[in-house]
Structure formats: structure tokens, C-alpha cells
């Protein structure tokens, strides 16, 4: 073997030396390839493992946390929900349609191999600015890819978020989340238990696509990335739909010991992970793997990332039954090997041994690194930025319209109307509100789910930004009437070998952990995506939080739209003089700097508890989180969604107008209450220690905002005008 082969495969010198030590000999080409993919950042988390230990992962509802294919939490009634988010950034950057589609396919299989029926998809997307034709191509491709895969699978895409910022121009983010449901007793693990049990490969045939996809995901994007297009897999949602039904059928029949999807690192990943989790070994014969084309080498077979395949470990003697179920669905199910006691992953080609590696060596023994870290210098400058030196626009109506029509704030209807968001008839609150709500059939319960993460905040203050990502996701499900119960996360960062990037990474995790701890929402699964850099530099550090909440009674489901004329509008929480890092500065002044709003976790928890209690006691009729764009944007959204206006009176106090209207102070929720229940709301708020003010009344066809000290209305806009700006913005740019 050429001495530099390990280098070409992305391994480091010390890693190559360790491999030789583990094996007690030189690895052959296949073995080296297997190590290279399994020890890539994407599969091994070698740069992130240490920092990830900060996350709180335990809680009374948690059935299983990180380390499995997906996390699971108990929701009562003998049921559990399983969920996880995963990135498919690099593939989507060079082949948006297939890249995004196979991202969806992959996360669905992660949920499926827990034995759960996938019931919802969400996705969090980041692109550059829509004035670039390349960005429009990526945006359009990603959205149609997600739609194609999810719609065909019959799994509704119920929510998510999309932001546009130039930091993502060369490297878009595509994070897909899937939620599944199952009876607790049906939970399946990705474990190859029982020596002598057969190992079956089911679903699609193995082809030459996606070889070294995991390695590709572990480098920066460059002008040569285009040539890596063959590393992108090609999806077939129809095949996966059949696979889904067949896998659930064999699971429910009780034939299965363990199940694992074939994603990154293909057969190598699935066999070594299942064997290693059980502390056992596995022997497989590549000769038995059904192939899409002739002449594939053991290397290609072991590393192929062909989609729509699963590894199934049935009880010995149930092979025929499993085969029969798959045959019913017109799918192949082939025994490729069996579980062994010696802890070795042995790959044979007929009688010839092609590779012999301790399974644990591939999954557990990769060196763990503590990359160098350094606080970036730009932070000081951002912190000292004083927005008060900027001119204040005369016309706040125009500012509000500009904000409503900025693509990051504007309605994402252009996106979600391409997704089937209703199939399976559980979607009680559709996309477009703070969180999506899904009823749980056979119970009186529902779950709410939301995805959040503000990259700009994290860039300007990683620790605070990390906390805010968790808090906002939790606040969103609270607004839907749900108690947040657990979260999954996707951490999208630049190259961790750069000290500034690693510093950001650690700070973000610190902030997220603090918030997750304070809000009682353990981290039950997640994914790290590094090397999100192109020739334009690194993306904003972007942690995405997928939060799931539980609604104990479907009568507690709420949405953001104002409901009835005469209802009183309250602001839970208090607006502070904060304008740094805001959408206002970005849209009005083209600035992305300043001090990030301060999150006080005690205040946050109190506001969320108050909102939930007021929903449970039937005080609150609608609830909407104040986030990007501040109070004025949130009020406009509630007017548009409810198709009814509002009369608002604000007190200026020590605030400047832009802070009052567009500042992004955390821990604030706009709620509406029946006109006879003013005192009830105020006294409940006092009990929870949350500063709460009556700011207006629902009614009319306009949003009117008056501010103390000013005699004229500062804002007076018809719903029609706001809706046109908000709903039409993205469609207009995509024409």
C-alpha cells in the first residue's frame, strides 16, 4: 500500500499509528477505508465529544438519550415519542434536491429503527441572500427535495424555520428533524444481541453511490467540491415507504432483536455500531449483499452509502418470517452474516477474509481531541457598538413593512405549501404559528414541536446565543400550550481545528446546557456538523434546537392569531433597552452587530410557567412569542394570522422608539384574554412574579400603535397592507 493512503482518506498520522497498534499489523486497504469513515468527524465526534458532555441528558421522562439512533421520552398512556435532528449541509450545497431529500430519508430511518412510526418532519434551513441566483437555485432545490421525499413517504412536514443571511451563501444549512411515536414496549434498540442471531440486510440494493460521504462531510467546501457530486446519494422515497411499512410490521410481530439504519459509512457503520453496542462481534459475507451493479469490490460494498437500506437482526429461526413480510412489500431481505462472541467485525468475501477489526475499535477507540480555542477578536468591537449614534427613521410604518417583507421574517408559506403538512390527520396547528401541534390519536393529548436557532446571536455572543436558542424553542412550544419536555440539537459550525471556531462551539454548548438545565428540557439526541466553511469563510455558529412539548389536554392547544374583537392584549415580560443584533439593525441599517439581548433564565422560566398556567386555567386565548423584529412584528403577525386588527397603547419610559417597537428583549409573550378577565390575568402574573402590562385590545381592520409622549399614532397599517408585504415577499423574490 502507498504510504500516504491514510492521508488521502482523511486520517491523521497519529490515528494511522493507533490503527496499526490496535490491529498489531498494517491495515489493508479495506480496513483502512473502514477506519477512515468511522473515525471521520461525522461518525466519531472526535472533536466534539468532550464539549457535548456538558449537556444535561437525564430526566424523569427520558427513556433513552444520546448514543442511540434517536432519543425517546415517555408521554404517558404507555406511549413514547422518539425524535432527532440531523444535518445534510454538504450534500445540499452541491446537489440541493437530492442532498436535502436524502437528509429527510436518513432522519426518518433513524426514527424507524427505534421501532417508532414517524409522524412528523420539521426542518431548519439557512441560505444566503435571495438576490443571488445561486442561492435561489439552492433554496428552490432544497425545498423541492424535502417536499418530494416527505410527501411521498406520507409523513407530514409540519414546521421549521428558514433564515437568509450572507454568512450561509457558500454553505447552506439543511437540518431535518423527525418525530415518531410508539408504544413504550415496542422500543427497539440498535443492538446486535444474541450470539448466533442472523444479520439481515433489507430494502434497496447496494450501489456505488455515496462512497466516502461521511469523509466528504468532514471537510470544508471548496471549488473542488463540485467534483464530489458522486459522494451525494440519490434517494427513492417510494422504496423507503415500503421499507418503513415492512420494518414496522416485523417489529410489531416481535421477530426483531435489533435494527439499525444504513446511513453514514453504510454497512461498515451499521455492523460495527450494532455489534459494539452489544459488546459482541459480527461476521458478514459481502458476497451475499444484493448489488445494483456487477463488479463491485468489497471496499465499495462496505463503504457505499446507498439509501433506503436497513440492517435487521432477527431472532434465530425467524429469518423466513422476516423474509416473508419483506416479500409481501416487494422488498429483498437477505441474511448476510451472524452475530459472534469474539467482538470482531469480520468481513468475508465467500471464504476469503477481507477485513478483521475489533468492532469497538471502529466505534469507540477513535482518539478524542481537545482542539485549541481562542476568543475571537471581533467580539469586543461588537459589544461596544452603540446603536444610539444612528439616525432614527421618521416613518415607523415603513420600518414595520420593511421588516415584515424581509425574507427571514416574512411568511414561509411559499415553502410549506409545497409540503404535505396534513397527512396522517394529526396536525392540529399547521405551519405558520409558533409551534406545530399534533394530536395523539387514542389519547386526549397532543405534542407541540418547534425548531429555533439564531446564528447572528451566536456569532455575537455564543454563550448567550446558545441559551436563547433553547429558551426560544421552549417558549414557542409553551405558546402552543405545551410543557417543553426534551430537546434535540444540531450544532452547525465551521472548522473546529480553528481555535476561534472551537471557542464558539464550546461557548454555545455551555449556554445551551445552562438553559436546558434551567428549563428542565434534557438533550436526548443530536448531531454535530463541522467544516461548514466555503471560500467565503465560516458560517455563523448555528445551533439548531428542536424542542418537543406535551399538551396534557387538547383543549389547551393555542395558536398565535388574535381571536375575538374586544379581547385584551397583554405583554408578559418587560421590554428592555436592547437593540443589538436585531433584525431592525440588519434591515434598516444593514448592520449585524451590537450586544445580544440578555436572557435571564429565572425570568424566562417564570414567563413560561405563567403562560402555561394561564392556558390551563383557560385565561389565555392566543399566545405569541416576541422574537426577531420585536413587539411590533409579533403584533402584526398575530393580526394577520387572526385576520383581525388591534389597538395598542405603549408606555415609552426609558426606551427609544426602535427599542420599544423592534427590540428583541427575551422572555416576552403576547397573549390575549377575554375582556372580563383583566384582573384574573394581572393577579396570576403577580403570583408568578412576571411584570405584565395591558397593552391594548383586539379589533378593527388595522394595527394601530400609540406611544406615550407622542400624540399621533406611530403605527397605523391595515391588515391587508401588512399581509401583502409579509405573505408575498418570498414568492415575489422566487418568481
Amino acid at each position, binding site marked *: 500500500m502507498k504510504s500516504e493512503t491514510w492521508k488521502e482518506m482523511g486520517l491523521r498520522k497519529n490515528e494511522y499509528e493507533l490503527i496499526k497498534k490496535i490491529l498489531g499489523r498494517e491495515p489493508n486497504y479495506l480496513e483502512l477505508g473502514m477506519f477512515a469513515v468511522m473515525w471521520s468527524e461525522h461518525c466519531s465526534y472526535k472533536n466534539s465529544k468532550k464539549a457535548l458532555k456538558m449537556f444535561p441528558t437525564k430526566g424523569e421522562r427520558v427513556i433513552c438519550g444520546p448514543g442511540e439512533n434517536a432519543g425517546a421520552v415517555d408521554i404517558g398512556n404507555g406511549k413514547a415519542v422518539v425524535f432527532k435532528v440531523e444535518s445534510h449541509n454538504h450534500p445540499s450545497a452541491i446537489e440541493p434536491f437530492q442532498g436535502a431529500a436524502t437528509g429527510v430519508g436518513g432522519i426518518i430511518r433513524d426514527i424507524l429503527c427505534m421501532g417508532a412510526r414517524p409522524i412528523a418532519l420539521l426542518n431548519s434551513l439557512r441560505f444566503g441572500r435571495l438576490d443571488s441566483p445561486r442561492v435561489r437555485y439552492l433554496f428552490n432545490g432544497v425545498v*423541492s427535495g424535502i*417536499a*418530494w421525499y416527505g*410527501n*411521498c*413517504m*406520507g409523513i407530514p412536514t409540519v414546521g421549521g424555520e428558514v433564515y437568509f443571511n450572507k454568512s450561509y451563501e457558500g454553505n447552506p444549512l439543511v437540518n431535518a428533524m423527525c418525530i415518531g411515536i410508539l408504544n413504550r414496549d415496542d422500543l427497539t434498540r440498535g443492538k446486535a444481541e444474541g450470539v448466533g442471531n442472523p444479520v439481515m440486510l433489507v430494502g434497496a440494493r447496494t450501489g456505488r453511490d455515496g462512497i466516502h460521504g461521511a469523509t466528504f462531510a468532514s471537510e470544508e467546501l471548496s471549488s473542488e467540491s463540485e467534483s464530489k457530486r458522486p459522494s451525494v446519494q440519490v434517494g*427513492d*422515497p*417510494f*422504496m423507503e*415507504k*415500503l421499507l418503513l411499512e415492512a420494518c414496522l410490521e416485523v417489529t410489531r410481530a416481535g421477530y426483531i432483536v435489533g435494527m439499525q439504519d444504513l446511513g453514514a459509512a453504510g454497512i461498515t457503520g451499521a455492523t460495527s455500531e450494532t455489534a459494539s453496542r452489544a459488546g459482541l462481534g459480527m461476521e458478514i459475507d459481502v458476497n451475499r449483499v444484493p448489488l445494483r451493479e456487477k463488479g463491485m469490490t468489497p471496499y465499495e460494498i462496505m463503504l457505499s452509502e446507498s439509501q433506503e437500506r436497513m440492517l435487521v437482526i432477527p431472532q434465530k429461526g425467524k429469518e423466513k418470517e422476516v423474509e416473508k413480510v419483506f416479500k409481501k*412489500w*416487494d422488498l429483498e431481505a437477505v441474511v448476510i452474516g451472524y452475530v459472534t462472541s469474539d467482538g470482531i467485525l469480520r468481513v468475508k468475501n465467500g471464504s476469503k477474509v477481507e477485513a478483521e477489526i475489533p468492532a469497538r475499535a471502529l466505534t469507540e477507540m477513535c482518539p478524542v481531541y481537545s482542539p485549541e480555542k481562542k476568543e475571537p477578536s471581533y467580539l469586543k468591537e461588537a459589544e461596544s457598538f452603540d446603536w444610539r449614534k444612528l439616525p432614527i427613521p421618521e416613518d415607523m410604518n415603513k420600518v414595520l413593512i420593511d421588516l415584515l417583507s424581509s425574507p427571514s421574517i416574512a411568511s414561509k408559506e411559499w415553502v*410549506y*405549501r*409545497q*409540503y*404535505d*403538512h*396534513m*397527512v*396522517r*390527520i394529526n*396536525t*392540529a396547528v*399547521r405551519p405558520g404559528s409558533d409551534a406545530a401541534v399534533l*394530536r395523539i*390519536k387514542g389519547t386526549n393529548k397532543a405534542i407541540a414541536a418547534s425548531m429555533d436557532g439564531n446564528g447572528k446571536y451566536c456569532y455575537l455572543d455564543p454563550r448567550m446565543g446558545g441559551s436563547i436558542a433553547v429558551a426560544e424553542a421552549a417558549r414557542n412550544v409553551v405558546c402552543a400550550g405545551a410543557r417543553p419536555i426534551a430537546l434535540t440539537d444540531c450544532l452547525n459550525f465551521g472548522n473546529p481545528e480553528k481555535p476561534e471556531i472551537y471557542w464558539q462551539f464550546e461557548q454555545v454548548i455551555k449556554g445551551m446546557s445552562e438553559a436546558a438545565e434551567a428549563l428542565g428540557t434534557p438533550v436526548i439526541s443530536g448531531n454535530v456538523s463541522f467544516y461548514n466553511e466555503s471560500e467565503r469563510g465560516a458560517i455563523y455558529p448555528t445551533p439548531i434546537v428542536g424542542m418537543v412539548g406535551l399538551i396534557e389536554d*387538547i383543549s389547551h*392547544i393555542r395558536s398565535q392569531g388574535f381571536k375575538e374583537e374586544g379581547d385584551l392584549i397583554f405583554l408578559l415580560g418587560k421590554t428592555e433597552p436592547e437593540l443589538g443584533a436585531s433584525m431592525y439593525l440588519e434591515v434598516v441599517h444593514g448592520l449585524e452587530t451590537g450586544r445580544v439581548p440578555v436572557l435571564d433564565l429565572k425570568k424566562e422560566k417564570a414567563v413560561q410557567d405563567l403562560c402555561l398556567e394561564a392556558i390551563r386555567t383557560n385565561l389565555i386565548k392566543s399566545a405569541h412569542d416576541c422574537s426577531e423584529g420585536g413587539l411590533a412584528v409579533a403584533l402584526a403577525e398575530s393580526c394577520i394570522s387572526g385576520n383581525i386588527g388591534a389597538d395598542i397603547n405603549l408606555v415609552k419610559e426609558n426606551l427609544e422608539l426602535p427599542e420599544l417597537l423592534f427590540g428583541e428583549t427575551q422572555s416576552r409573550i403576547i397573549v390575549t384574554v377575554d375582556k372580563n378577565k383583566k384582573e384574573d390575568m394581572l393577579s396570576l402574573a403577580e403570583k408568578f412574579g412576571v411584570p405584565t402590562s395591558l397593552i391594548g385590545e383586539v379589533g378593527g381592520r388595522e394595527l394601530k400603535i400609540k406611544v406615550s409622549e407622542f400624540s399621533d399614532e406611530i403605527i397605523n397599517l391595515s391588515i391587508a397592507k401588512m399581509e401583502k408585504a409579509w405573505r408575498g415577499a418570498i414568492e415575489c423574490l422566487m418568481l
Partner: protein
Amino acid sequence: MKFGIVVFPGSNCDADVKHVVERVLGFKADYLWHKDKSVKGYDCIILPGGFSYGDYLREGAIARFSPIMEAVTDYALKGGLVLGICNGFQILLEAGLLSGAMRKNDSLQFRCHDTYLRVENEKTPYTCLCSPGEVLKIPIAHAAGNYYVDENTLKELEESGQVIFRYCGPTGEVTPQYNPNGSLNNIAGITNRDGNILGMMPHPERCAEEIMSGVDGRKIFESIVFWLKERC
């Protein structure tokens, strides 16, 4: 009263229809496998929505050759009630049980949102509980609902009252503005001449319970039940 729901590989609204028939209406529903050759013993056959055979080749083009389609055709030609929803409608067109064809939506995109439908003929098994010209709010979810048929057949369909639903505005106005896919004459659903076979693009099973933001879809199912009871 018993409903049969055909499951093709790739059907994905089968469970939704079953839920509505059993849990909302309180009748029995069985899944019928696409490889079966009989639909005996059922009062109404439903071809549900989804992506039969992944929409490969053309929506419904492969499913129409499924073994069960012969039995469904026999059943329909003898006057049995057959309802095709979305992909089910596309299969009925491909099978020649209804006239016309589906093209891709004029937007060339999948579309999922509420639509308003004007009931154009309330004297069918599927609309007999509706009032003339009633407006129903029922969602669509499809990439190919752009109904097309030749001019003469269109005229015939219109004159013989086979156009059952038309996309319209909230108060029943039929204008291009409310046409979500480019279908001729805003057509959302048609029957055969005898009125026992209905194909419709919108999904009535998605709005049959209060919690699913609307119950207008229930009227279609309740009409079927009413019709079947009256006939007996």
C-alpha cells in the same frame, strides 16, 4: 355497512380514511391489498391518496394494472360506489373509469392548503346531504391536479351534471384566482355518467373532526352513508 380501502404500494392516506370511517362515522372498514382479486361484501370502495408506485411513470399509471383493479372495475360497472381521493382520482382516470387526465399543477409545484369547493350537483351518493351550491372548505395536497379533458367530453360532463365540485372563493365565486392547479373550468371532482364513481382531488378525510380545523369533509362520508341506507 362496510367500507373497503384499497392499499397500493405507496398509498399513504389509507389509515386516515380508515380512521374517519371507523372512529368518526362508526362503521367498519377493511384494507384491501392491491394483489387481492376480489372486493366482494363491501358497500363502498375507496381508493385513498398517496403516491402509488412512487408516482413513477405517471400518477396512477402503474396502480391501474394492480390485480385488484379488475375487481374494482367490475364492481363499479355494476353500480357499486367507488370513491377515488387525490391519487385515487388519478388512478380512476388512468383506469378509464372516469374521463380525462391529470397534468402537473400549472405552478409545477406541490400544493397543500385549504380550498373552497362549490357543490355543483347535490343529487349524487357523495353530496346528497349538501344543499345546491353549498361551499365546502376541504384541503388539497397534490402535484398533479390540473384536470384536462377534450372539449366535447367537457361539454358532456358539464351538461350531464358530472362536474361535482369546482374550486371557488369563500362565498362560491368560481374565478381563476381560486384555481390552485390550472384545472379546466376549476374542476375539483367529477363522476361517471351514472354518478356511482367519484374522483376528487381534495381530501375530505382531512377535515372530518373539529380538531382538524374544519368538518366539511364529513359531509361527503355522511352522504355516502345516507345514500346507502336510503337505497336499502
